[in-house]
């Protein structure tokens, strides 16, 4: 009785507090998605026009070799990037959490790539990966004459180099997110485990990591969003090349949105990406919603 009476004004506050979010979600995002959907059904060029071409843009999209290759590249890249960042980020977070000296310096060393614009670091990665300038040449000069590392000029391997550079950029962020999670773990757990003589790795594996589920979910969603939006690194490092070997969907969308003045085709591409994401995330959201409901 009393709790109920007291919770009412609070509920009211919660409703008010969520208004900006509701506006953003409905007017901003839902509105933009519907607009994009609408444009994708027209023959708009530089500006949106309101004719109807049904699914002609989608048909063109799925007959376009570059788009299909982009999707394939993104799948390969996505798996490598998300797995790589989570793994490296986790290892770094756990090690830094072991009460190391110079924590701030180490943290910054792993996180600084996140602050650097790819416009310039892309050039550095280009140099590093360039067979006649970078790592290959340096190792050969050290005496390993047969050493070969020329992925960036190899159409079959170039997408791996994009993964390497972007993992370098993003795994520091994953480290920080997981570190924030680790710092939220109750110190009593550690005290108890030490008293019981349980080795640290077992505490991590059996107790602490399972508690970080939400931190992992946060990191995974951020990484997944970065995968879908992958653009800067490709433009800075390969411009989609050699040929079209490292093309990705966001670059296809961008190229058609601005340079190629075909916003209808670009919108169709964006909608396809959105539907793909929904198809991937729906089962996860559904399962989590169910487990959440049963836990409460």
């Amino acid at each position: 009785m009393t709790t109920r009476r007291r919770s009412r004004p609070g509920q009211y506050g919660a409703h008010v507090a969520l208004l900006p979010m509701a506006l953003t979600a409905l007017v901003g995002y839902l509105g933009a998605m519907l607009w994009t959907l609408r444009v994708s059904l027209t023959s708009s060029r530089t500006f949106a026009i309101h004719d109807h071409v049904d699914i002609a843009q989608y048909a063109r999209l799925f007959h376009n070799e570059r788009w299909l290759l982009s999707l394939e590249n993104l799948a390969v890249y996505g798996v490598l990037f998300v797995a790589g960042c989570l793994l490296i980020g986790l290892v770094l977070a756990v090690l830094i959490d072991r009460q190391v000296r110079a924590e701030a310096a180490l943290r910054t060393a792993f996180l600084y790539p996140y602050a650097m614009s790819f416009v310039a670091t892309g050039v550095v990665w280009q140099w590093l990966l360039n067979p006649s300038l970078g790592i290959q040449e340096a190792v050969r000069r050290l005496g390993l004459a047969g050493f070969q590392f020329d992925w960036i000029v190899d159409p079959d391997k170039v997408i791996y180099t994009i993964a390497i550079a972007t993992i370098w950029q993003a795994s520091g962020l994953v480290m920080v997110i997981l570190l924030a999670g680790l710092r939220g773990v109750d110190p009593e757990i550690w005290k108890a485990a030490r008293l019981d003589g349980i080795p640290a790795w077992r505490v991590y594996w059996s107790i602490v990591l399972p508690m970080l589920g939400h931190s992992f979910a946060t990191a995974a969603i951020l990484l997944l969003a970065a995968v879908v939006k992958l653009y800067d690194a490709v433009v800075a490092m390969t411009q989609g090349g050699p040929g079209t070997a490292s093309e990705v969907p966001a670059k296809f969308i961008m190229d058609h949105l601005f340079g190629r003045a075909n916003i209808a085709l670009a919108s169709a591409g964006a909608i396809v990406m959105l539907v793909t994401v929904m198809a991937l995330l729906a089962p996860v959201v559904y399962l989590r919603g169910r487990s959440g409901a049963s836990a409460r």
Partner: protein
Amino acid sequence: MFSSRLTTIAVALLASVLAHAAPPRAEVIHWWTSGGESAAVRRLADAYKSAGGEWLDTAVAGSEQARAVAVSRVVGGDPPTAALFNTSKQFHDLVEQGSLATVDAVAIRDGWDKLLPEPILDAIRIKGHYYAAPVSIHMPTWIWYSKAAFRRAGLTAEPATIDELFQDLDRLKAAGLIPLAHGGQPWQENILFRAMLANVGGRDLYLKILRDRDPRALQSAEFKKVLSTFKRLHAYVDGASPGRNWNDATALLITGKAGIQIMGDWVKAEFALARQLPERDYGCIAGLGPQVPYIVQGDAFVFPKSDDPQTAKAQQLLASVITAPRTQVAFSVQKGSIPIRPDIDQSTLDVCARAGIAILKDKSRVVGNDENYLTPDQNGALSDILTTYWNRDIQVEAVQKLIAVALTQ
């Protein structure tokens, strides 16, 4: 000289008439941000200032970004006074929307229809109205060669035919040099293609393919030869070329590691930075033979419509100032381009620019750039096919078919 003086006086007079109240203010969006480009656009700003105007500079690196900003500002109701575009179909959608003001008064006063090269006229004149003021002409398919590399390969004369070009490439290769300095990016591969279309195919085929998108020409044996010659060049680039920036390819010429680069006349800025001079350190060839078409890639300012009469005045003054002969020469010297009009004083221009101006006077050699004839969308589709062909092993017949489909759909 005399006529340019006259125009300057006319400009000054016009300016003084316009400047009775506040000076005309022009906010200008452009993508000229590197050292040389920056110096060039400053010549425009200075000329505008001395004509009584005030130049507000909005520089945005990257032509696509700059155009995107200009278009969004038009959509958002906060248009700039002027925005840079290429002389191409890029701004035709804006014209169709009724978003651009004309510069007919200046164009008719100065007789642009007799002064400007045809591809530029065709791009800026729509249904008899002028919608842009041209400012520079680049030629994207110059053939540059390093004199040092040529000496090392024992080459004394510059190539005069396509066969000689390939012989020279072979000699350079035999001398252990990189024969062709190439940056493996789609737009640079596109340049090689256009160079071959111009030099191997000739003017007729060039126009039939890009302007008319003629199905028979697209399927012809001549076009097939163009495509296979383009691919033949691939044997002369080094393995590290994919992804390389054009200027790093030029650096290979500067250091004498490579012999030849096919690229627009903006490379002169890189040579100049390395304190190298035309004729002494490097050579420039506009085309292999006296009939080879000269490709005109132009830049022009467009003027978004405004209700404010002050803005309209600022726009007319700007169109008048940037096309004036004196401004044109001052600008071209810095930019590496050539002036849009032939009635100028050439003494301060370099030998390559003078060669370009001489060719430009021969109307039978002048053709437009790919973007003059193709929509940005068609051009992009073509570029995708060409870069794939360059980098993968694909039969030339298959490529020919893909191009025919992309350009005729």
